[in-house]
């Protein structure tokens, strides 16, 4: 017993046993229905924004929630991909699907490079290293020619998906984004509940032990990092097409902070948490923009409140309250 007492137990990490259970599938069905109906009730561009950020947050959460690695530099992948997509679509004239693909590939490559460096350290160091590396991307985005400095890349044409579907139609765009989101979400779901996900959890729990069993843990962590970066890139590239722009906002460290907030608010280590968190944060940002309240202060207060009062996040709290099996 004694040896166990000062091993810090991550609060968020509850036993995630078994495969997607009934409540999870139910939640998924509800989510799907809501998302299909959403553009008829809500402002479609707004819902698209939510979806892009939800995917981004889910990708981020894959890393912290299931590999125990807090990245404070995910904006680099999100924003980096947005720039590449915007540039290839606008300047090279690629169709949107190819642009997004290239953006995603870029994020994956960047993820490989950053990951290889960052996984050399753990915990807080990891967070700081990712933060610093993403700052590099920020400065590059600021100084390189093709990124357009402070102006960013504007007026990116939405174009025709596969040459047929006209994305300038709001609904066509919406369902495309929804498809991208669902694809990304499915990948994450599958990853979490896969043999790979199982090893990842083991590493998060006790890394030296995993090594002694013969797992090259660095490879797994790197793989998780690259997966997460890739999906963040997918979100960023899609966002560039939706908003028809890619700007410094996407690569700023505040963006990395925002995605942390989304996951934290919704529930780190839960599958649906980041979706809920993203929806809340995006709504809040929209609402605050029109109010007289200082935005950073409000966001900061929520941050503090989450950390102090509901660390498990909204979905995490609900899951904890209504029976053990988390979605």
């Amino acid at each position, binding site marked *: *017993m*004694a*040896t*166990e007492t000062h*091993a810090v*137990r991550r609060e968020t*990490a*509850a*036993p995630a*046993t078994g*495969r997607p259970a009934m409540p999870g599938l139910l939640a998924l069905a509800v989510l799907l229905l809501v998302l299909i109906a959403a553009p008829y009730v809500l402002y479609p561009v707004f819902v698209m924004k939510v979806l892009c950020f939800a995917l981004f947050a889910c990708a981020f959460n894959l890393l912290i929630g299931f590999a125990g690695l807090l990245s404070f530099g995910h904006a680099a992948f999100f924003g980096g991909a947005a720039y590449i997509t915007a540039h290839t679509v606008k300047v090279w004239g690629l169709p949107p699907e190819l642009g997004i693909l290239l953006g995603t590939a870029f994020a994956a490559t960047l993820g490989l490079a950053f990951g290889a460096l960052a996984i050399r350290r753990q915990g807080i160091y990891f967070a700081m290293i990712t933060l610093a590396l993403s700052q590099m991307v920020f400065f590059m985005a600021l100084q390189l020619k093709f990124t357009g400095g402070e102006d960013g890349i504007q007026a990116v044409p939405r174009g025709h998906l596969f040459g047929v579907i006209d994305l300038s139609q709001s609904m066509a765009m919406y369902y495309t984004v929804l498809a991208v989101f669902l694809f990304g979400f499915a*990948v994450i779901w*599958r*990853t979490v*509940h*896969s*043999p*790979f*996900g*199982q*090893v990842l*959890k*083991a590493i998060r*729990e*006790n890394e*030296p*032990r*995993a*090594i*002694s*069993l*013969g*797992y*090259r*843990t660095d*490879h*797994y962590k790197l*793989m998780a990092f690259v*997966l997460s970066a890739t999906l963040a890139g997918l979100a960023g590239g899609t966002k560039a097409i939706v908003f028809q722009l890619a700007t410094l906002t996407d690569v700023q460290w505040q963006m990395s902070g925002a995605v942390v907030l989304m996951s934290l608010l919704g529930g780190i280590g839960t599958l649906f948490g980041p979706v809920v968190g993203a929806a809340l944060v995006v709504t809040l940002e929209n609402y605050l923009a029109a109010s007289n309240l200082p935005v950073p202060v409000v966001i900061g207060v929520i941050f503090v409140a989450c950390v102090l009062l509901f660390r498990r996040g909204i979905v995490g709290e609900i899951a904890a309250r209504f029976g053990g099996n988390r979605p």
Partner: protein
Amino acid sequence: MASDVILETRGLTKEFRGFVAVRDVSLRVKRGSIHALIGPNGAGKTTVFNLLTKFLQPSNGNILFNGRDITAVKPADVARLGIIRSFQISAVFPNLSVLENVRVGLQRPLGNSFHFWKSESVLDRLNGRAMELLEDVGLAGYAHRPAAELPYGRKRALEIATTLALEPEMLLLDEPMAGMGHEDIDRIAALIKRVSANRTILMVEHNLSVVSNLSDWITVLARGEVLAEGPYAEVSRHPKVREAYMGSGHA
């Protein structure tokens, strides 16, 4: 006969900033034996373990496993060659269930551990073997509890089950009995005896009754050097060993 020796070290030395913790240790572990490493505190036993499993890099000397030089191999790869260790401080995956703990061990040789696109249900076919292993260590009743909830002794048992899951050719056990009650000690000792049937075991242990009952061969370390070697009866008569380690109580 060379094939008789599964693990061999030659002139193994480890120096920490001027302090020599292990000096010129040459071990020969026979295949299929239970080999104990004993010695006073600070003799360098854990350090030797760490060197063998490459958690530490030797300052000097070579390590040969099955005749192959593994001195430059990485820890995870040492494990892949078939040398699995347990830790002096119990090492389980606290928030995984007991069954899952064992499956983490069983899963590795499958080679699907990077398959993030497959369902984890592919792991279900491991459940049968996992339960067998749990049965072996007396943990079948705990299969679906999180490992964190197990009492200390059971955790050690779980650790051994996970280790055995890998069918290691060679097991390194660092003080497997430390902190255990008497019943647990007997249970684990019996288990070790049982699993030793077709594999080699190298263990560090202070509990001399366990050592004397289990081990075929004993190496005594003191101040980083090999002081004596041989079967228990012989070693325990060695005056230097009595002086440096056993004391007057174990005549």
